[in-house]
């Protein structure tokens, strides 16, 4: 009986250790993923800034990503960072296409 208890305790400890290790490995991976996603979004937004065409929702999404990361909610942080990257790229596309497209609206003599 005592041996069985020790065996069960050992199995429990082993499972707990593996689960803990997996959890910490997952958290480390998520944080790294967040940093990667945030860096991509931040780079795109900096480019939008260089083009003088940042969007408010991009800034809001970046702020949301930072807040979520501070709370170690990396799933949410990554989702917000990816949203920011998409928005920033859209603002870059807008600025680039408008280099000539603005003339379509112009009142000409």
């Amino acid at each position, binding site marked *: 009986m005592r041996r069985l208890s020790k065996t069960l305790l050992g199995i429990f400890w082993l499972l707990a250790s593996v689960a803990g290790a997996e959890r910490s490995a997952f958290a480390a991976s998520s944080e790294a993923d967040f940093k990667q996603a945030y860096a991509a979004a931040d780079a795109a937004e900096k480019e939008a800034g260089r083009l003088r065409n940042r*969007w408010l929702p991009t800034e809001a999404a970046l702020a949301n990503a930072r807040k979520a990361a501070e709370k170690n909610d990396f799933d949410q942080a990554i989702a917000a960072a990816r949203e920011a990257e998409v928005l920033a790229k859209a603002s870059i596309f807008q600025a680039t296409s408008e280099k000539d497209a603005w003339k379509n609206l112009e009142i000409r003599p």
Partner: protein
Amino acid sequence: MARIGRAGSRLGVRSLSMPLAVLLLAITQAAVAGNVDPAAEARAFRDYFFKKFPNVKADDFANGPYALNEDMRRQWEEKEQFPPYEFSLEAGKEMFAKPFANGKHYADCFPDQGIGIRQNYPQFDAASGKVVTLELALNECRTANGEKAISYTGEDMAALTAYMAFTSRGKPFDVKLPDDARAREAYENGKRYFYTRRGQLNFSCATCHVQNPGERLRAEVLAPALGILNAMPIYRSDWGGMGTISRRFITCNSQVRSVPLEPQSEEYRDLEYFLSYVSNGLPISGPGSRP
């Protein structure tokens, strides 16, 4: 642009090597851009609005949405009995008269002691090569006399410009575009900014104020671009206070979900230059009030 493209095809540009074709097109475009006459553009700008609103008298465009909407006009005329900008106007008059610590006044920084000159701003300053708006000139006056600059979006700047606009009421906008490539570039930059779509809503200034003046955007009746700065600064019920041209530009950018530029940035000053130039001849009606 389209005309240039078709002409290029006729000339056999396609048969040329790509870099040479691109270079030729760029030169042609530059030549065409150089030939555009801003005075002719301003006439076309005014004619667009005169044709769009044939029943509106030219000078009435200085009254913004009230020129286009009869109900709003009646409310505005009643409101003008006790105008909401009156306190700001009085404050501006006092501030304008109050000497700086060195004993000098705002009046010492402007021609005609700063009275009745609002219609001449913005100006192109050949020495600095930049557009100088009235707001910028007021702050340059302050700093030149050892005072701190005041906020371009604050009540004090609104009050000062309200007083100066009031002394120019009825005088036609008379913004000069000197024969200077840098002035011309500033005008072109302002024009480009005006027509360029921005923000998540993908709106340009022209989307609202050229394509849709008189239409409602939620509770707001959109003002025509022609004469849009003549009533500045304005009391806006939406703001619950007075606002400068800087504040108006920043609000417009925010409304289309674009990150606003810094007040009195080069783009905003050039935009003000363009909008004022095309409204030359229309009377100053500021300070004004808007819903």
